[in-house]
C-alpha cells in the first residue's frame, strides 16, 4: 500500500473551494468564522473541511506575504502589510 500525495495547494485553488462552500450554504467565510449562523445546518464533514481549508488559506497568505517582504526593501514593508492585492503584486 502506497501513500499518495495530492497536488500542492494554491491560494487560488483554496479560495475557490471556500467560495464553493459559501455558495452551497449561503454563508460568507467571515460569517462562518464568527459563527453567525445556525451551525446545525452545516454537515459535520463540511464544517471540518471548511475549517481545514481556512487554515490552508491563512498559511498560504502568510507565505505570500513573507515572499513579498523578502522581495521589497525594508521601508516598504509597512505599506505591504495590509495590502489587499498581494497575489497580483507578487505576480507583477
Amino acid at each position: 500500500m502506497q501513500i499518495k500525495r495530492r497536488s500542492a495547494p494554491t491560494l487560488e485553488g483554496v479560495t475557490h473551494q471556500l467560495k464553493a462552500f459559501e455558495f452551497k450554504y449561503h454563508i460568507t467565510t467571515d460569517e462562518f468564522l464568527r459563527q453567525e449562523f445556525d451551525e446545525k445546518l452545516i454537515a459535520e464533514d463540511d464544517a471540518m473541511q471548511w475549517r481545514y481549508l481556512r487554515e490552508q488559506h491563512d498559511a498560504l497568505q502568510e507565505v505570500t506575504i513573507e515572499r513579498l517582504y523578502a522581495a521589497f526593501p525594508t521601508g516598504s514593508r509597512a505599506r505591504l502589510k495590509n495590502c489587499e492585492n498581494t497575489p497580483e503584486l507578487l505576480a507583477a
Partner: protein
Amino acid sequence: MRFSEYEAWLAAEVANAPLEPDSVQIGPFLTPTVVPDKPPWQMEWTVLFADGHYFRVVENWFRRSSSFGGYGCRRAFSFHYGPTNTAKDNDGVPLPSNKFPAIIRIDQDVDWRGPHLHYNGEDHVQQSRVQNLRISDVEPLQFVRAVMEHRRTHQDFDQILHFTVTK
C-alpha cells in the same frame, strides 16, 4: 510532529493494516503542506468492502504557534464505519447521508460538537458520557484495527475498544 515524520509513521502503519483482500482502497491520500515539512496537512483514507460497508478516516493537522517550533497538532479528525451510500463523490468516496447512518463514527472538531461519538444510533455522544476512552487520543489505525476485528468477530465496538457509554 512534522509532515515528514507523519508521512513515515503513516506509511509504516498502513503497511501493517489487516485489510481484506477483496476490499477497494481510495487512498491513503496526503494533501501536502504549504511550506515544505510544515503544517497544515490532511490525511484521507477510504476502504470499501465487498459486503456494502466501508470505513473512512480523515485527520486534519493544523499549525501551532512558532513558540512550539512550528510543529503540527491534530486538530480535527473523523473516523467512520458503516453501510455504503451508492452516491459517491469524484474520488469514489460514499457521500454522507442520514439514510446510511454510521455503525460507529468517532469525531473531533473544534466547533460546538467537541470530541464525540456516533454510536448505537445516537448522535453526538459527548466525551463526558464515554468512559475508558479518551476520544481525542484515538488513532486512525487503532480505529481501522477495531473495524477489522468487528468484521471478523462481530463483537460490538464498545467491547473491542473497551469503552462504556453512560446515560
